């Protein structure tokens, strides 16, 4: 029997499943986060998206001692954990329906909107919180908001955003924003437009470092053609689209995490590319350039630790 409410909810024992038009989401209570994001039958996540704080140190960062000052964020990048999960169904908060409370549901549960938020405790001293809120709307579109809670005892951040690791290599991406690699203090030369990029190019700096940021982007469409599903031999390209919420976002689409880049001293030290790492950023630190042995990034392009950062964006299949 058809239901007028578009989202079907599966109140599981370990997860919350949400089925919408041509899409399916699984939120995992114990792992903390969005474990599965499927559009048109294709899985888009390798692991749960997580807040990202660290960027692979640039030569300028190293020169002015920024990594030493910010090193807590490297720990936070690796070891922050979810401490709290909150759920709203049709914009009404409900207690997390863990067993046996979920016995009251059936196989026919529907809703207009589901919102689930995960609050991370950063492994910093002192600790602070990051809340990531996922809202599945009736269209099946996923809205994501990330909120960093500032603390005046915490150092400047290398960056703040959400990192999505996708199971296979993208064949390329398309975006609306500025040409080339841009940073907040190096974006005047970027030309607005829509750009199609082949593969996931890594800017081959002599020592691998943060690269590939695209500031002021309106949308980003990632294209893949393979999955990890052993029964899926289809190679027809499929896409996922990130689009701006209240404000344009910054992103990078690379085959490496910040830690993989940080660990390499040469391009040839980087591992064989096998996954796609999309980072959607609400705050980007500038690259600086006065010198490479002490001069910091100009104050306007640093990310203070004591101020809240809130940004949002949408995800949908194409």
């Amino acid at each position, binding site marked *: 029997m058809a239901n007028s409410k578009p989202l079907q909810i599966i109140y599981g024992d370990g997860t919350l499943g949400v089925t919408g038009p041509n899409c399916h989401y699984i939120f995992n209570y114990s792992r903390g986060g969005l474990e599965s994001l499927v559009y048109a039958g294709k899985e888009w996540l390798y692991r749960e998206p997580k807040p990202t704080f660290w960027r692979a140190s640039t030569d300028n960062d190293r020169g002015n001692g920024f990594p030493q000052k910010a090193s807590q964020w490297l720990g936070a990048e690796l070891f922050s954990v979810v401490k709290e999960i909150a759920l709203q169904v049709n914009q009404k908060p409900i207690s997390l329906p863990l067993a046996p409370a979920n016995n009251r549901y059936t196989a026919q549960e529907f809703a207009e909107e589901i919102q689930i938020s995960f609050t991370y405790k950063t492994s910093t001293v002192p600790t602070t919180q990051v809340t990531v809120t996922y809202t599945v709307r009736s269209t099946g579109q996923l809205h994501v908001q990330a909120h960093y809670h500032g603390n005046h005892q915490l150092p400047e951040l290398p960056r703040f955003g959400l990192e999505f690791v996708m199971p296979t290599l993208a064949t390329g991406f398309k975006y609306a924003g500025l040409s080339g690699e841009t940073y907040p203090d190096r974006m005047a030369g970027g030309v607005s437009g829509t750009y199609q990029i082949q593969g996931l190019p890594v800017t081959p700096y002599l020592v691998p470092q943060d*690269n590939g940021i695209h500031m002021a982007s309106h949308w980003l469409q990632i294209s893949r053609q393979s999955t990890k599903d052993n029964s899926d031999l289809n190679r027809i390209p499929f896409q996922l689209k990130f689009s701006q919420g209240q404000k344009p976002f910054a992103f990078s689409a690379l085959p490496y995490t910040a830690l993989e880049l940080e660990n390499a001293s040469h391009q040839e030290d980087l591992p064989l590319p096998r996954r796609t790492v999309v980072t959607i950023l609400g705050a980007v630190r500038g690259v600086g350039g006065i010198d490479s042995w002490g001069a910091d990034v100009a104050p306007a392009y640093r990310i203070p630790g004591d101020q809240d950062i809130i940004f949002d964006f949408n995800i949908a299949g194409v």
Partner: protein
Amino acid sequence: MSQQNQHQPNLKWLDDPQVFRVNALPAHSDHCWYRSSQEAAAQQSSFRKSLNGHWQFNYAKDPRQISQNFAEVTFDSSNWDDIQVPGLIEFAGYHKFHYINTLYPWEGHHFRRPAFTTASKQDAQGQFSQAPDNPVGQYRKHFHVPVAWQNQTVRVRFEGVQTAMYLWLNGHFLGYAEDSFSPHEFDLTPYLAKDDNVLAVAVFNASTASYLEDQDMFRFFGIFRDVTLLAQPQVHLEDISLRPVPSSDLQSGTLTIQAQTVGTLAGVTAAVAVKDATGKSLWQTVTSLDQIQSGILAQTTFQQIRLWSNDEPYLYQLQITLHDATGHVLEVIPMVFGFRRIEINSNKVMLLNGQRLIIKGVNRHEWNATSGRVITSANMDQDIAIMKANNINAVRTSHYPNHLTWYDRCDQQGIYVMAENNLESHGTWQKLGVVEPSDNVPGNLSQWQAAVLDRAQNNYQWLKNHTSILWWSLGNESYAGTDIAAMETYYKQQDPSRLVHYEGVFHRPEFKNRISDLESRMYASPDEIETYLQNNPSKPFILCEYMHSMGNSVGGLQNYMILLTKYPMFQGGFIWDFIDQAIAVKDEISGQTVFRYGGDFDDRPSDYAFSGDGLLFADRTEKPAMQEVRYYYGKF
């Protein structure tokens, strides 16, 4: 002392800063000469013969292991290796690559102090000539001179040999030279054989010149630029000095041609012709050379001139043809010149052609990832094209004279050149980030002054006719003292048409009235620049190095650019730098071509990736930051 008529080589010259050239011909203008106007049009001179190519080579690990008598014609070199000239000994696989910044390359291996500083006499003696860490490249080259050159004076030109070279022809000692980045010529005529000739060269990795050549770069040695034989007709213009000077209103201009002649001048005439850029004849004259050994060959005024600039690099064409008494052509010399005026006005603003000049510049090392400082014409063409495409209007030849044809390209394309001397001695005064000049050279040391003046002279004499050169730069990071002040005096005496630049006087303000027309800094922050400009500045301000493009950088360019609109005396600068200096190698594991930097060759101590500061990657692809440079440099 510049020694002439030395018939025996002496290894002790390596230890003595007072010996830096022996029997080398005086530096002169870089003009080319041809046997006919057809040759000149085709740029193929039958007076020239390249000696580039395969040479025989022997690597001696130190001076004691040199193959003796190797310059003799009869020496058996059949077991020697083959090496490519030009080429660097490191790239040929004989010697370890080594990159280091301020520290001298022997740091951590040998203790050395420059002669006449804190070094004892004993330490200075044999410091290089008997050093176990001073390898020697021994070269031999057989050649024939063309039949047409019989009875002509023939010289050999080495355009670049690092660091110190001894030269023989057919077993006869010809001379000695330092100053790695300037051409050196030696007269072959007295010992030239009709048929087979053997040129022999011993190239030492280090000498006292090493103290003056501490540039922050990979340290190489070898014959790394062209080697050429040059014959000359019975009468020849050895040196030409063009002085195109616009009138005060920049409407008209006077060209003065000075020349130095060699040969028997009786009856010889010089036909001088000037054409505009389209080939239209503007002026012709014929001068008898009878009375002119050295002096003004011709002079004229053009009533309407077109000025040379970055926007319109307008060049006039000059041809000088020497005829003998019977009217036969002796030589044809084509040159170009442009009219432009660089000056500082009463408001202490630097002007080019009466307009405030904004330097949208870049520092450039000569670099090729597969051959180091051996670069090709294609590399240079590409570099110029990249500069033009990205609104870069100026280049500083950091930190040594470049390939001669580089300046031709800059003339033609309107790139303003800061022509820098081959001088950098930061290892003698900049220690662990602190100014500590107790063993600084050249400083105030009389024993080092002639060597640096020789470098100034080489730079000036070879390059003086290039319109694109607006500034002579005394060197880089060499502190300051009376020796560098003497270099400034030399340029001022020689050349009223250009400005002189030197940054290092920043550390010795007491020399500011004697050194540098410009207030030059490196890596000053926008705030520091404003502080200077708001406090009764005495000189126009430029940044000889700024925006350190190491890795992912060049953020905040805007903060410099807005100063251009606020302060007329802020006149821009040169980004550090143009191209990453990294070496392309085949990765041992993956087989892919990869780029390696200092420390990757077991070279220690090193400054690792610090030579990777380009707007280009080492393979000449543009870094992403280039679009920012293009944008801001295009706005001003």
